[in-house]
């Protein structure tokens, strides 16, 4: 198989008069993750126009949030980017804590970092698995899923759920980490790095893979900035922007890690940046495990925010009343607005919350990174061949729940 650019060159030379044809890709298409439809107009093999239609997974996230109390929003945030739910939890929790001017205990921050980075690893592994599988490398998919199951096991031991955790709370996290969990997390490193190395060996130097990804779907840095690209996709285009570094939240300022940045801006870079980030995440977790100190995991003294412990609730009338008030009337968040942003699996994951002082949010807006990235998919496809749609789209890691909300 000749490289994409050579193909184009050939087609340039023999300029036959052709008429365009419209092809539907998706919403049900092995490469469309079931939630996107691309109406491509092809002239022969080359795409002259592509109309990307999202919204097949619109679940009314914001409307639901506006009908429940502040604390009940967490399960909905889980299902935004369901590949890395904890990162969404953290983003939303930080927004409400900002509105409340609430300090989160250090241990809770570390737990958020560790579980969040685990989520990120799962996210990137899933993305790589999808790219590879859609390009025919099914074994990579199996490797990634095997590694991801380790991540899921750890998160399950911590939160009780494999995928949708709802683990964070306003003012901390739900529970402290179980006995001996940190060692288990470390124990999983070898297998994950092993899988990453295997993939490196199988894909990164694979002629077929390189031909299909290098120079495909190039986004220049200027375009990427103007299009609001962030996260791996943006960094693949040379935008040196990582919220964890540039606006360090939580305890990220105490952790030492690199932000992989490449400048070709093509599909391969987007793939490779993710590979590199998995390694960086492992570094972060390693340091966090060293630094974490015992302590409380919920904001202390914030009795009007944090639910009382089970013991208090069942054995003292004070705890019972607080529990009732917090569950029935919700946390009384002072009037105001706040925008917080964390480094999600796909980039800057922002939450813009507006409160009118009651227990029910006026507005919970999620700034979905992959919605913004997918917005430029149409432009990226033009000029490529039909076969290139699959790797380009796969490398954007469009997550339906986050894109359509």
């Amino acid at each position, binding site marked *: 198989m000749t490289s994409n650019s050579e193909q184009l060159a050939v087609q340039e030379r023999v300029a036959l008069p052709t008429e365009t044809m419209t092809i539907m890709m998706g*919403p*049900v*298409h*092995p490469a469309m*993750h*079931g*939630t996107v439809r691309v109406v491509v107009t092809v002239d022969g093999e080359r795409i002259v126009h592509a109309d990307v239609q999202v*919204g*097949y*997974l*619109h*679940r*009314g996230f914001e*409307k*639901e949030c506006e009908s429940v109390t502040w604390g009940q929003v967490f*399960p*909905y945030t*889980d*299902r935004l980017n*369901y*590949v890395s739910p904890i990162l969404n939890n953290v983003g939303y929790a930080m927004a409400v804590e900002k509105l409340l001017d609430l300090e989160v205990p250090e241990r809770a921050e570390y737990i958020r970092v560790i579980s969040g980075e685990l989520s990120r690893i799962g996210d990137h592994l*899933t993305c790589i*698995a999808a790219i590879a599988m859609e390009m025919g490398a099914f074994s990579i*998919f*199996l490797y990634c*899923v*095997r590694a*991801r*199951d380790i991540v*899921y096991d750890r998160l399950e031991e911590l939160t009780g759920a*494999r*995928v*949708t955790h709802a683990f964070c709370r306003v003012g901390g996290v739900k529970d402290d980490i179980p006995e001996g969990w940190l060692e288990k997390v470390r124990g999983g490193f070898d297998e994950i790095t092993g899988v990453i190395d295997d993939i490196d060996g199988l894909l990164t130097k694979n002629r077929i893979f390189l031909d299909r990804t290098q120079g495909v779907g190039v986004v220049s840095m200027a375009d990427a900035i103007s299009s609001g690209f962030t996260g791996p996709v943006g960094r693949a285009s040379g935008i040196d922007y990582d919220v964890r570094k540039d606006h360090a939240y939580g305890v990220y300022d105490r952790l030492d890690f690199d932000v992989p940045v490449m400048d070709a801006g093509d599909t391969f870079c987007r793939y490779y940046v993710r590979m590199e980030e998995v390694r960086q995440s492992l570094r972060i977790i390693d340091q966090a495990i060293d630094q974490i100190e015992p302590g409380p995991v919920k904001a202390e003294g914030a009795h009007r925010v944090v639910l009382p412990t089970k013991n208090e609730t069942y054995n003292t009338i004070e705890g019972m009343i607080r529990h009732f008030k917090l569950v029935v009337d919700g946390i009384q968040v002072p009037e105001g607005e706040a925008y917080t942003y964390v480094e999600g699996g796909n980039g800057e994951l922002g939450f813009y919350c507006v409160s009118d002082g009651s227990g029910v949010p006026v507005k919970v807006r999620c700034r979905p990174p992959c919605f913004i990235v997918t917005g430029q998919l149409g432009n990226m496809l033009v000029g490529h061949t039909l076969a290139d749609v699959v790797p380009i789209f796969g490398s954007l890691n469009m997550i*339906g*729940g986050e894109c*359509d909300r």
Partner: protein
Amino acid sequence: MGIELYGVDSLQKILGWARKYSMFKQPFVTACCGMEYMSTMGPRYDLSRFGCEFVQFTPRHTDLLFVVGTISERQAPVLRRIYDQMADPKFVVAFGVCASSGGFYQNYAVVPGIDQIIPVDVYIPGCPPRPEQVIDGIVRLQEIIQAGETHSQRELRQLAEAKG
């Protein structure tokens, strides 16, 4: 006479046995449940152990429709069209509460259960269900198929009886 009955009976048995262990399935993956679906297909919870390995992405070649995840009102016509294109006898599994009942998305955008659009044979609870639950659901489906009690099998039987 008895022999005939016996023959028919055993033929049904053999057909059911053949069907339940050779399901071509189309995953209609839309949402979060897809993650667990991947795990289920993955090396640890190896779904191929249950004769449900082969994944087909064209409905015309499949007899098992896996509806994995939330079905929005916008997606509903697509799902129905996929179902119509499948060949009889066809089986449907609602994977997760969103597909079964809409889950906790009881709002303007989400179909409250795909069984408002297509008949469902097995509902797998969970948000998302654990792979073990999925395997359990598959085994249940195989039992139903063996018994010939899936929606489409019943329909076919009724048609045959109507013909006489």
